[in-house]
């Protein structure tokens, strides 16, 4: 199911031009979606170089699949889906390198007010310790603000599994952060 987001007709025109072989139009699509794709990849793989490589591969796939896409909303849905599946595949292949045991994450003093870089880093470290599927669910929930049913569509996962991942992951993060005094 496509996420019902308002997308300007101009985006559909850009897609049509890209489908007709206009490289500038395709570049505009890349620029429009690059922070979404790179962000999804970066939050899951935790490595800027790997995230960029993965994001580039996603856009190469997009270029090859342009003729199958019907609208700008379809492009957004397709990019989220393909990026998520690629992230999960990559994360599973590199599990040993990427997943840090929660017990080994060093505890740091964290402030809880305002824009707290230490807090964000701490959250990212804790998220990195989660299984890749749970990481992907959290990233789609909080980066893309998707509802559990939309996440389920994106990941081809039962909606109850998505809800379960969210409940357990959020509880774990909250518990760890409270224990470290970073959350009141």
């Amino acid at each position: 199911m496509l996420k019902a987001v308002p997308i300007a007709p101009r985006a559909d025109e850009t897609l049509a031009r890209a489908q007709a072989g206009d490289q500038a139009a395709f570049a505009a699509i890349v620029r429009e979606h690059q922070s979404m794709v790179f962000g999804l990849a970066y939050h899951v793989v935790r490595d800027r170089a790997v995230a960029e490589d993965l994001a580039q591969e996603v856009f190469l796939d997009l270029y090859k699949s342009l003729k199958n896409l019907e609208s700008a909303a379809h492009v957004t849905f397709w990019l989220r889906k393909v990026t998520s599946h690629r992230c999960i595949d990559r994360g599973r292949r590199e599990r040993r390198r990427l997943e840090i045991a929660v017990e080994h994450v060093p505890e740091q003093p964290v402030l809880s007010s305002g824009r707290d870089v230490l807090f964000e880093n701490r959250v990212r470290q804790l998220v990195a310790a989660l299984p890749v599927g749970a990481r992907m669910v959290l990233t789609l929930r909080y980066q893309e603000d998707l509802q559990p049913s939309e996440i389920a569509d994106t990941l081809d996962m039962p909606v109850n599994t998505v809800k379960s991942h969210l409940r357990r992951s959020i509880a774990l993060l909250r518990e760890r952060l409270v224990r470290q005094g970073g959350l009141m």
Partner: protein
Amino acid sequence: MSFDDELRRAFERKDPPAGFADRVLARISQTQPSGVESRGPQTSSPFQVRWIAAIAALAVLAVASSQYYSSRQAALEEERVKEQLRVSLQIASEKLNEVGRKVREYGER
């Protein structure tokens, strides 16, 4: 700020390093485009090639069958003519034997 809001901040979208789109386009230019309308010479897809091969094979089979049928018909006709000749010679031989027998009987009288 709620825990959800904190998480949204921690999971904000990230911009890739500068020049990302140019690097994507450079990689595309190194690969064969297949998802956009081709402006170069049209080439046959594997599906079309298989159809052409199947049609060519059927044409060869039809020509070979026709030639086999023609040669078989000629052989049958040859056999029929040979049989007619054999029967004709046999009849002529029997008639000659009959005439010879009558000539010998007339001579003995």
